[in-house]
């Protein structure tokens, strides 16, 4: 069910909901990979909630984006860090907002340069529709309808709490 939000929901509660959705799959020993920056925060939170012993992977898709020709290189790219062997692993890619699907595409491409995973699933806090590629979330905490000019942004407060805010694009 999706509807335009009047009040933005609690991102921390959504993280707990997302963890509940993932928990039945833990027998496959999945590894988490968070997409900078929001997805990385959520992946770290999921790791705590699911009590996973392994370090999470962090991915910056700047080198794999499809809009390099129009926009150039993002001025603040961060190193991708994958601290485990991707080959044969079940991976859960984590992002804050699923929109066009292009970031997911770039992240999947990058992961394959580390090896051939057994599977990749996608966990997102918010799915705002508007897909331009055949991408779907395996685990989603919140389906939301937004206008084109609206941008849903996940932020991290000084006390470490994750919070949503709305920006105008």
């Amino acid at each position, binding site marked *: 069910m999706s509807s335009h939000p009047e009040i933005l929901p609690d991102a921390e509660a959504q993280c707990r909901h997302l963890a509940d959705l993932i928990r039945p799959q833990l027998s496959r020993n999945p590894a988490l990979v968070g997409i900078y920056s929001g997805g990385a925060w959520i992946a770290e939170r999921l790791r705590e909630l699911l009590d996973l012993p392994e370090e999470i992977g962090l991915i910056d898709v700047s080198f794999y984006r499809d809009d390099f020709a129009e926009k*150039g290189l993002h001025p603040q790219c961060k*190193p991708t860090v994958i601290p485990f062997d991707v080959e044969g692993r079940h991976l859960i890619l984590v992002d804050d907002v699923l929109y066009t699907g292009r970031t997911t595409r770039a992240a999947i491409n990058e992961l394959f340069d580390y090896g051939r995973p057994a599977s990749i699933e996608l966990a997102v806090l918010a799915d705002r529709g508007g897909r331009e590629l055949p991408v779907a979330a395996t685990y989603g905490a919140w389906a939301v309808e937004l206008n084109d000019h609206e941008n849903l942004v996940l932020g991290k407060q000084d006390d470490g709490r994750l919070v949503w805010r709305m920006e105008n694009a």
Partner: protein
Amino acid sequence: MHNPQLNKDGELTHLLSIEGLPQRILTQILDTAASFMEVSARDVKKVPLLRGKSVFNLFFENSTRTRTTFEIAAKRLSADVINLDINKSSASKGETLLDTIDNLVAMHANLFVVRHASSGAPYLIAEHLHRVGRDDVHVVNAGDGRHAHPTQGLLDMYTIRHYKKDFTQLRVAIVGDILHSRVARSDIHALTTLGVPEVRAIGPETLLPKHLDKLGVHVFHDMNEGLKDVDVVIMLRLQNERMTGALLPSAGEYFRHYGLTPQKLALAKPDAIVMHPGPMNRGVEIHSAVADGSQAVILPQVTFGIAVRMAVMSIVAGN
């Protein structure tokens, strides 16, 4: 003043010289290079950023190492690389530099990496590309005359930041033939821009340019004084051709005064790092015990150089 390296939005579109670049651009290059370091450590050492782009290495002057590292960097960005050894081709048949460029642009070149014996040659190419309306073609200076070697300067800064973290507390000494060194010039501009409070130049009077003090550089002729308490020692290669002229008595004499031995290095801070742009002349400017010692970071410089060149090429190609 018009800066031909920057586009109208103030973004880097050519890399011609470190002089005139703001700190934010130098920092952006170093930060981006840090991300590329990780790429070179993977099994698949390649990202698709410059897929389908053509990088032309135009080396009007020999340099195996610099050309090779640019070639590796471009290939790790998935570009196609064409190496042109100009001495052996068109220039020897009388074609002008800019005619050569026009021909290569007609072959759909996207980026030129230029090494030239004449100071300013890469500027000439960048201005020409602008004049003919090809702002989509980019130039990276790989060393022009005595003027600049900006990617070497940047990889030196990357090395310093890697080991020392912060530029604003450092004492850095550059030792040797500063007069003929484009590396020294690029290093001095970069160190100053990044906020290094004390840059020293050490060398014989005949190999130091005049007016170094105008760049804020402290000049020393005695290595024992100049190396005292420095955090970073950048040794320069003594070019053999300088030895034949009147500038220097002999290689042995030079080594006695300006060669970096373990005894002289002991005057620097205990955790000082020793850098050298290569190729080294062991026993001329550096003692083997120092070159192979625990304070030398000369081989890491080479590794960092690839990541820095990947960063420079991907930033200019995107702007």
